[in-house]
């Protein structure tokens, strides 16, 4: 049989999705379904003096209006918890519905349930909330200033946590004796995830059984069930079923447990009816956890040869008004630990202050911490290339961790299992025609007019989250393994139950490829089930580029167990010893006697008949695995961006984008390329266009797609992609993960390119997004 691993078979998900037959949460209808509309604070910070719901209740068709009082009366925990604890983390309560204080525009204050969604909206407008507006602070730096309005009494100075990694003294010493130093003050702009499908939930409680089924937009249904039952609704976990039907993108935003989904669950319990809520785009932008929002001061020390001797990073990271599910981990263990990049850096210190602000909470968004870290390291490397005179390529090469140094222990906890950084750089230079581009650049500089710039980003990421014991020791309140149940049916077709719940990645296709390849069956004979807590044993879900490396490895393990069991059955039937059996191309064979073999189907059937069967073996042919990885995986690569800058207007045009990524073994090249394309679009979007802007009073002024610029197809160019392959040494598939790489690498590549173009103007930094006006002002100042 031809190999199916490493081939671009088409996504089996697509026929339904592209013909409009995909069933998303909002497509679902339940008998007796009512609709919820959530009343939200228009203020960033205010005291609630009173809520008058009578006008809303009087509207025909309105079934109920609930406020914080009803949460209290229900006797449920009623909060939205944080799932990652740091030492001395301040964890002020996040009530499902605000009781006396609202802390960001969009904070929920009441919910209306009505017979249809229009009436629900009309009634929501009639809920009269008496607010006493209070001073607010939306900016992460302003929130740390003396006298800044306090977001929570429990968190003096708005400090949620104060965290560091690495050692300060060796870094100070490195700077004291450095031949070259470069430093930078930068902002990593706040982003809104913008999944095309807004968050939605359909909660159906049945008082006769005490059971609730919740269909919702989830990247991790089991995690949602746990948080929903334990912290919000106080229901027994086994009485709640969470189903994620088709999910239209998430990028992290559908990992987190939100107040809204819990509120809708409460409504269903109260009314004993199914209740649906689908966020409007405005609500999505006000309530989906945002990403990034750092203010950072950083510096790099180098010796006379251009070798890095020390790196110092100090970051204020916005948490928003409440701590979202994984929020504290993002700017710490997913950020500070990445500061060594691809480089052998002998001394690193990274200090991070987590800051409450009167804004939408911030949490994991595609890349989660790693784009911010890459941006710091790679912007500094660009400046180091200039300061040392080595240029961007040589300064990187000189500092790459050498291929024979792996496993490489960084100064910031992570131990890189494998890597080979030079070839990716070589290939990128070759693809882009580097020398030729530099001479074009020189002639543009001589002749004036539009300028060309070339920017690099040599990134590392840690993904495939992660050894449970390690993340547990770092504060995670969850394990990070993944489960797979693989069942071979009597007719030798296969069903896989995976905890990696897909939200657009094509898991059904790639996971079927893994099984098909290992078990020697047709991919079409493999069904993949995910996203349902009643069907799937348990699962940690899809985020952190973990599905192939962790979820896929769990599937591979289960297949291996099935083969082992099959060998015993076949050995019995063939009257051979199990040790003498080989499994190849879907058949069990006695080594050395090719005519003595049994097809998988024969063995599967016997496993279920169990008529002629080994005494010591249980019937059936299925296996469950809970795979806990030995380490993170460490994809890496070099990206090169070429831009043209119109210095008269400040407009930037992308000319070329070449990316050489090493994501380990590739299961489906088309899907890997697709992940890179999407990640690149989002990373380039962050660099050039995207920005969540709050005004001083805490209003989100880029709250609609008329103001918040997500990249559109005509803004982008064809990406030039290639790969090197350094398999992950510690998982059975040798895969590493690709979901976030594009978003991690690209912001630095784009900004470095623009800054490179503008070097003749003495410009060394412009904060993202590089809007034409900012560029124009920089050129003219």
């Amino acid at each position: 049989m031809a190999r199916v691993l490493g081939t671009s078979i088409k996504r089996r998900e697509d026929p339904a999705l592209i013909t409009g037959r995909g069933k998303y949460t909002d497509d679902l209808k339940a008998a007796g379904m009512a609709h919820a509309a959530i009343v939200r604070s228009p203020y960033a910070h205010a005291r609630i003096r009173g809520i008058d719901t009578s006008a809303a209740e009087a509207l025909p068709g309105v079934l109920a209006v609930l406020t914080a009082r009803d949460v209290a009366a229900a006797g449920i925990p009623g909060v939205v918890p944080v799932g990652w604890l740091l030492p001395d983390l301040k964890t002020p309560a996040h009530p499902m519905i605000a009781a006396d204080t609202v802390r960001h525009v969009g904070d929920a204050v009441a919910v209306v349930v009505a017979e249809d969604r229009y009436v629900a909206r009309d009634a929501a407008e009639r809920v009269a909330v008496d607010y006493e507006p209070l001073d607010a602070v939306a900016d992460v730096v302003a929130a740390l200033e003396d006298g800044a309005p306090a977001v929570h009494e429990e968190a003096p100075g708005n400090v949620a946590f104060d965290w560091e990694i690495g050692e300060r003294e060796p870094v100070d010493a490195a700077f004291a004796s450095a031949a070259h130093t470069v430093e930078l003050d930068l902002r990593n702009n706040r982003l809104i995830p913008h999944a095309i499908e807004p968050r939605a939930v359909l909660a159906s409680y049945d008082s006769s059984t005490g059971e609730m089924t919740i269909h919702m937009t989830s990247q991790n249904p089991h995690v949602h069930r746990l948080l929903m039952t334990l912290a919000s609704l106080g229901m027994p976990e086994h009485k709640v079923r969470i189903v994620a039907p088709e999910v239209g993108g998430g990028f992290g935003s559908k990992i987190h447990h939100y107040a809204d989904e819990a509120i809708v669950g409460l409504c269903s319990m109260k009314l004993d009816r199914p209740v649906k809520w689908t966020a409007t785009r405005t609500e999505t932008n006000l309530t989906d956890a945002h990403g990034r929002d750092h203010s950072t001061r950083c510096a790099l020390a180098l010796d006379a040869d251009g070798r890095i001797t020390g790196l110092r990073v100090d970051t204020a990271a916005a948490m928003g008004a409440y701590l979202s599910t994984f929020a504290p981990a993002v700017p710490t263990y997913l950020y500070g630990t990445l500061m060594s990049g691809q480089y052998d850096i002998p001394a690193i210190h990274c200090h991070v202050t987590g800051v409450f602000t009167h804004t939408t909470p911030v949490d994991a968004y595609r890349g989660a911490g790693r784009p911010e870290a890459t941006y710091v390291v790679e912007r500094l490397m660009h400046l180091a290339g200039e300061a040392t005179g080595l240029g961007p390529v040589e300064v990187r090469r000189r500092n790459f961790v050498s291929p024979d140094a792996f496993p490489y222990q960084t100064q910031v906890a992570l131990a890189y299992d494998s890597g080979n950084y030079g070839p990716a750089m070589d290939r990128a230079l070759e693809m882009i025609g580097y020398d030729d581009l530099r001479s074009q650049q020189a002639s543009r500089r001589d002749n004036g007019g539009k300028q060309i710039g070339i920017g690099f980003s040599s990134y590392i990421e840690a993904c495939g989250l992660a050894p449970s014991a390690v993340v547990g020791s770092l504060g995670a309140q969850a394990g990070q393994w993944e489960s797979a149940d693989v069942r071979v049916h009597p007719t030798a077709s296969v069903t896989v139950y995976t905890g990696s719940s897909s939200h657009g990645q094509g898991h059904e296709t790639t996971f079927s490829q893994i099984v098909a390849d290992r078990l020697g069956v047709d991919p079409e004979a493999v069904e993949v089930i995910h996203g349902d807590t009643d069907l799937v044993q348990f699962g940690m879900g899809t985020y952190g580029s973990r599905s192939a490396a962790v979820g896929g490895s769990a599937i591979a393990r289960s297949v291996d167990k099935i083969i082992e069991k099959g060998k015993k059955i076949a050995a019995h039937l063939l009257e051979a010893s199990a040790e003498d059996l080989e499994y190849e191309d879907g058949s069990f064979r006695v080594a050395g006697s090719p005519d003595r073999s049994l097809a998988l189907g024969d063995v599967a059937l016997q496993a279920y008949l169990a008529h002629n069967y080994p005494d010591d073996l249980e019937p059936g042919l299925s296996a469950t695995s809970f795979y806990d990885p030995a380490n993170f995986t460490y994809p890496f690569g070099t990206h090169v961006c070429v831009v043209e800058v119109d210095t008269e207007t400040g407009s930037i045009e992308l000319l070329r984008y070449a990316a050489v990524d090493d994501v380990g073994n590739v299961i489906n090249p088309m899907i890997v390329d697709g992940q890179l394309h999407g990640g690149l679009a989002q990373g380039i979007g962050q660099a050039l266009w995207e920005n969540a802007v709050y005004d001083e009073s805490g209003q989100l002024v880029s709250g609609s797609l008329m103001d918040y610029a997500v990249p559109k197809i005509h803004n982008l160019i064809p990406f030039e992609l290639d790969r090197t392959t350094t398999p992950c040494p510690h998982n059975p598939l040798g895969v590493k993960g690709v979901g976030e790489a594009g978003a991690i690498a690209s912001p630095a590549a784009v900004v470095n390119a623009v800054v490179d173009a503008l070097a003749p103007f003495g410009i060394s930094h412009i904060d993202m997004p590089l809007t034409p006006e900012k560029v124009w002002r920089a050129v003219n100042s």
Partner: protein
Amino acid sequence: MYQAQFDYRRAGSVDEALSLLQENEDAKLMAGGHSLIPMMKLRLAQPPVVIDIGRLDELKGISEAGGSVRVGSLPTHAVIAASDGLAAHCPVLAEAAGHIGDAQVRNRGTIGGNIAHADPGSDIPPVLVLLGASVHLQSPSGTRSVAAGDFFQDLLMTDVGEDEILTHVDAPALGSGTGAAYLKFEHPASGYAVVGAAASVTVQNGRCTAAGLVVGGVSATPTAVDVSSLVGTDLSDDAIAAAASGLDAEDPIGDIFASGDYRVHVGKVYGKRALAAARDRA
């Protein structure tokens, strides 16, 4: 987004639409719905009655006669962009229509709705002002026409009366020796024009005999620039740059993407480039 309750009426003729307007206070006409419906979904507009005029064939024509082009209020941006008649006689209007939104928007939005809505970032208004077009309106008491330069009154405000329907637009055809161009600096989020520069020049025997420049996006209404200094010149780059730098806006509009000052600056640069493009086409 969920709009408030409203009644929907479809007019079978312009006359019926006019009487429906009279009968229903605060009713809104709907052509392509691509500005009205978004406003209703945001509940910025809550008309009790929507009168759909989108299927009135009498408003759909594009024709040319006696040195003038006539465009009904209902041709969509896509129809205008692809019109052979406009390509021959008034290509700059087709060029501007082709820059609007995306294919879906161009297939639904109409020229009449575009100018009646009068968004400052719209692509059509500066072109109509440049051309010296006239806008034709009909009410129960008769018809009237108004110069495009007077039609746009303020942000989202025009000369259309509550009882009036915009029926068509007349614009002089571009004669030989005349080149015109529309250049757009697109907003990365909305796709509307941050700045849209419409320019025309007429050249006879190597000398400029007439020139015009109108810039949209900088102010609430299209801003005409006095480029008469170009008349008599050979339209050198320097002369063009000097003329375009005359763009002046008292109260430029700004947003988080582009401040007023910056828009004026870009207006000058795009004005210059549009004039140069017009020269090259003349």
